[in-house]
């Protein structure tokens, strides 16, 4: 079988699969969720059917975890476990492909603060997933905090699910930030009116929107009972005297997003500035591996879909399909990237957050490594790299493998902040699953041509 493998069925993956299928190429679309759409188009899991339909050339493999990507001669082997999440009874499948599209997306970045490990503190993405996907609000009185436009739809979803959103605390000062790059903001197309609509929605729900404000502590013994909100200065240091206590039973925080890099790292793709480096055809530094969506930079669903369309066409071309360069999608990608750059500039994470922590504040949630232990590793043991930092402090050695703490621990230790993304096993598998006989490899048959080797990025980019 000669087909593309797309990992991730969010906006980028859906667009990649659809674009490749439209060119007559078969696609296997692999995703962890039962339904299509990813985090952005999160579907109601309790409703019947699927909102999305795919062309017949696309085989959708739901409930599938890619636990390893293995480079082999001429392509890659994608190792799946399919079935109930984390269950030893999952079945295996191994797909070999000469054109792999990675659209694995991103997850919320959470910054640590005292009390952030209490039950009732969630990421903004958790609040969103529970409200949209499971029809349940994570609390009755919820404070939404962090930075970025994503906080608005999260607050709206919480309100729709019946929660009282006490406030939205935005750590940056977005209006002045947007004004600093009006052309970039305008490149966002539908995004600005969409955000205005959310803002209107929140105004109708009487949800206060507080700029330069953050949750700097959560209080409670067994779960969150209140938070401390503080005004922030330009660098996010709390303004003395501005702290006030707010009674809540849940907090949802998000400080932008971290790309899910491990499959790209396993495929040996070059990472630049924390994201997968791609050419104009979404090709990575590794021939036959394409990346689209948040993996290549945080830019939202529209940009992700445009990148997906380009990646799908480029992957199809690699398999020998006759492909006209998708100039429209490529132009949308360029515009989307300008918007993404404006977004990144408007909603940065400022250095002052490190001052929210106390010596006993947990940095690594899995291994319960606090700031004191992390600092001891750096200062007393003079640790200068991520691997020794992990082993000397314990941070990043737990089940999440540094997904939550990695960037924060790296900043606190003064190290480069993507070095935690190397995870050879991309998702835990049970030993018995590994020990079982390897499923028969579904091989990739090559219709090999020199033209197919060359992406159109090199022709038209």
């Amino acid at each position, binding site marked *: 079988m000669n087909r593309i493998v797309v990992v991730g069925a969010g906006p980028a993956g859906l667009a990649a699969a659809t674009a490749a299928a439209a060119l007559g190429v078969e696609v296997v679309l692999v995703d962890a969720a039962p339904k299509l759409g990813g985090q952005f188009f999160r579907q109601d899991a309790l409703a019947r059917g699927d909102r999305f339909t795919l062309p017949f050339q696309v085989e959708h493999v739901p409930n599938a975890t890619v636990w390893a990507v293995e480079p082999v001669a001429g392509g890659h082997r994608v190792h799946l476990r399919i079935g109930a999440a984390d269950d030893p009874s999952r079945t295996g499948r191994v797909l070999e492909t000469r054109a792999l599209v990675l659209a694995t997306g991103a997850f919320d970045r959470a910054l640590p603060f005292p009390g952030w490990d209490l039950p009732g503190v969630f990421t903004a993405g958790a609040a969103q997933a529970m409200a949209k996907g499971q029809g349940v609000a994570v609390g009755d009185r919820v404070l939404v905090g962090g930075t970025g436009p994503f906080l608005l739809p999260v607050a709206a979803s919480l309100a729709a699910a019946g929660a009282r959103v006490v406030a939205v605390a935005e750590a940056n000062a977005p209006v002045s930030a947007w004004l600093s790059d009006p052309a970039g903001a305008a490149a966002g197309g539908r995004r600005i009116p969409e955000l205005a609509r959310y803002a209107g929605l929140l105004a109708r729900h009487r949800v206060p929107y507080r700029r330069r404000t953050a949750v700097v502590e959560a209080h409670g013994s067994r779960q969150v009972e209140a938070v401390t909100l503080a005004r922030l200065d330009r660098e996010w240091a709390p303004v003395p005297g501005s702290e006030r206590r707010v009674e809540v039973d849940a907090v949802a925080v998000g400080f932008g997003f971290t790309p899910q890099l491990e499959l790209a790292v396993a495929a040996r793709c070059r990472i630049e500035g924390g994201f997968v480096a791609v050419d104009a055809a979404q090709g990575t530094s590794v021939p036959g591996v394409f990346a689209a969506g948040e993996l290549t930079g945080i830019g939202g669903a529209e940009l992700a879909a445009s990148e997906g369309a380009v990646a799908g066409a480029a992957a199809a071309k690699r398999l020998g399909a006759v492909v006209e360069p998708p100039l429209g999608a490529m132009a949308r990608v360029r515009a989307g990237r300008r918007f993404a750059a404006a977004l990144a500039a408007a909603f940065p994470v400022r250095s002052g957050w490190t001052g929210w922590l106390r010596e006993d504040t947990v940095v690594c949630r899995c291994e319960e490594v606090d700031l004191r232990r992390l600092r001891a590793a750096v200062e007393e043991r003079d640790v*200068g790299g991520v691997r020794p930092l992990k082993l000397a402090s314990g941070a990043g050695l737990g*089940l999440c493998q540094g997904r939550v703490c990695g960037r924060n621990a790296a900043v606190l230790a003064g190290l480069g902040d993507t070095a935690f993304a190397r995870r*050879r096993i991309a998702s835990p598998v049970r030993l018995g699953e590994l020990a079982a006989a390897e499923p028969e490899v579904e091989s990739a048959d090559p219709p090999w041509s020199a033209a197919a080797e060359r992406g159109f990025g090199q022709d038209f980019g």
Partner: protein
Amino acid sequence: MSPIESADVVVVGAGIIGAACAEALSASGRRVLVVDRGAPAGATTAAGEGNVLLSDKAPGPELDLALASRRRWPELLESLRGELGEALADVEWEAKGGLVVATDQDSITPLRIITEAQREAGVEVRDLGQAAARALEPHLTTAITAAAHYPGDAQVQPVLAATALLAAVRARGGAVCGGTAVEGLIVKGGKVAGVRVGGEAVPCGAVVNACGPWAGHFSITAGAPIEVLPRRGMVLVTAPLPPLVARKVYAADYVASVASGDVDLQVSPVVESTPTGTVLIGSSRQRTGFDESLEVEVLRRLARGAVRLFPVLERVPVMRAYGGFRPYTPDHLPVIGRDPRIPGLWHASGHEGAGVGLAPGTGRMLADLMDGRRPEVDPVPFRVDRPALMAQIKA
């Protein structure tokens, strides 16, 4: 003031061997500069399990060095405790013992032959039957046919161990510089006079090549090639578990796998818990140069071996696999001593997977040789110009 101005000795490589050499040299009063092109304790050392083993060594020079090192480790940690304090000297030392198990009839006799020989060489080892072995390790498979218990086997956490040794070097006035590549030796009058670092000359009287798997590369840069090659090993790490495996437990064929010189993949199950509750599953050996890419088949074979020894592991999650390169020599013996071609150049490498265990003995041997003292262990088998290694040296 930059720490890199001059030194008595420059140790190249801040892994466990470089750290142990630097510690021993600074203990005898030398001002030592340790440089590493990467992060200290960040390569082979960070990918090690921290084995301090007697059980896997047949009688011979390596076992002699292992016995001396095993005696030295607790003394060394005790002195570091006094010098650096409790926290820094805590390297998760566990004198946990080892258990070697045979899982078929054919392995019983070879196991008994080796334990008998080890006993004569001074290793404490008890031959056990199935029931006694399972009394020590209740989760062990019922399929074992014989076992040997080595109370002297121990474990340390290698990054903690190396960083503690390096802290001692700093405390004695030495310096450790990560992210610093040595570009070459400075040789004057046929002798080492310094090293070139970042385009600058650092005068020194001696240089120690402790580059582990990259010792061969460095020896070429230094103009005195030795044959040290990378041999790759992978380890699986489970999610944290309740106490499950008290000792280091491995199959009897591990010894043969260690001693093999095959280029092909060798896998032999080694299972042990760490203080955080994770279970480490080794071991694989593969000579594939410095290729780092994942091979799922290696992981599968590691998993099969572990589940065979401990069936309870079958439904336990594996959360991590890590790999590293170990320094391999054609005759399986470390290289410790002076380079006869360039006076002032010394080598300490080639320990393969035993570097953590052999580190204190190696450091001491090197310091004794440099000071002109008679080493506790005969250094002749480890010398740089020994026939087995010399035969491999290409100009």
